[in-house]
């Protein structure tokens, strides 16, 4: 069982969401994140020019069984890709265990397996 964390462009969120739902994933969390990086955006406010280094992205967290990691990652890469700098990152890490609150079962079989 693995946790996949993907940081993607806000503009790509809908596309990635649709692609994930139509593959094997039936639940994921996401939140808006602000990052600081090398890229700068030029802005002007009331005659004062300034640059902002705040980058807005969506972070999504998906927990899935081992065999779904690769296809899920592939779906995200395929849909979130534009080729420009700033397309994002995907991180995969090990999950130790999980419980279903409703049934009390635990282990990766708790995660639904559509296939």
């Amino acid at each position, binding site marked *: 069982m693995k946790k996949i964390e993907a940081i993607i462009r806000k503009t790509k969120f809908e596309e990635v969401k649709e692609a994930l739902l139509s593959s094997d994933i039936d639940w994921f969390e996401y939140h808006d994140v602000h990052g600081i990086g090398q890229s700068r955006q030029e802005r002007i406010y*009331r005659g*004062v*020019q300034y640059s902002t280094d705040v980058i807005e992205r969506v972070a999504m967290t998906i927990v899935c069984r081992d065999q779904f990691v690769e296809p899920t990652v592939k779906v995200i890469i395929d849909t979130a890709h534009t080729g420009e700098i700033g397309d994002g990152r995907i991180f995969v890490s090990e999950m130790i265990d999980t419980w279903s609150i409703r049934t009390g079962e635990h282990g990766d079989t708790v995660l639904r397996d559509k296939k």
Partner: protein
Amino acid sequence: MNDIALSLDTVWMLLAAMLVFFMQPGFALCEAGFTRSKNTANILFKNFVDFMFGSLLFWFIGFGFMFGSDGAGFIGAPNFGDLSFYRGDLPVEGFLIFETVFCATSATIVSGAMAERTKFSMYVIYSAIISLVIYPIEGHWTWGGGWLCNDATDGFMMQTFGDAFHDFAGSAIVHSVGGVLALIGAMALGARRGKYAKDGSSRAIPGHSLTLAALGVFILWMGWFGFNPGSQLAASGAVNRIAISHVFLTTNLAAAAGGVATMFITWLKYRKPSFSLTLNGVLAGLVGITAGCDLVSPAGAVAIGLVCGTVLVFSIEFIDHVLHIDDPVGASSVHGVCGILGTLMTGLFSTSNGAFYGHGWGFFGAECFGILVIDLWAAMCGGLLFFGIKAIHGLRVPARIEDEGLDVYEHGELCYNS
């Protein structure tokens, strides 16, 4: 006078008063939008303070200072709530309301320039003093029948310039006074924390909602249709119905031209048209046309709007980058600089006595002298008031309160709760 005609005039005056009253929410939204969300309750509250205190004090004393009888034309006798002294065709209570909303407009201009860092208690004192003394006294010199607008041939203005000072709806009397006070208030306060870097360069502190600011400016634009045409104080008869229609048109054209000028100047200067400054540009045109909206032609109104919208951009930059006076909403440029410009340009563009129409420089001289006297008065009062308060009690909230927001510390109420 015909009874029906007088009723018509009264209804128009009261309707215009309602429109001018609605400029208060216009100012409130505009200022709220241009400042940060942690200070929104505070800035809205200040706009209420201006109107609440202005209404009470102008009724009780200010109205007498402004319109009361006197010998020399310098100050009227305070009325202490008694309106019976007033001699005019229009009902005195309606006229008081009409004049009250103008007084409150002058008062409320300052809150934007002093936003995000002023002690609420000290703002209440300022607001009371402008409605009580500063505005009514210069108002007496002009609209109150005093010496500046005295067109008797043996009066000082006619003897000196051959023309009396003319400010139809208040570029000088209302707006430049508010603008000068705004500038001095912001100067006495000092800049918001973080506004200027150590090397003196200016930093942007973006306001929290251009939506609110835009709505505010649209409301002000509408309010101006009461402010200027209402100042005719009459609607009945051929002369008046033509006059108020003319003023409607000149007012609208100047607003549009002001916005267009600012849009193109910022487009050239910053490579992108600046919306936040264009909002100010519309107001700049409106403030500019206010003095001469009855005397200039529609083309003259466009010219005044274009000049005001252009100068505005450079004025805001100059006050921010060179003088290092932090005016979050641009009140000193919009109302101060463009109020002065509009008054002066009345002397140039007036079709009946302006210099550009071959009537000589006498009227222009009267406008220069009038605006100088009025704004020196405002500057003197503002200097005494703001630097006085600063020396005696302090004008500014402590740094920690400024950082965390005035809403929570000054009022214990947040504007936005989740």
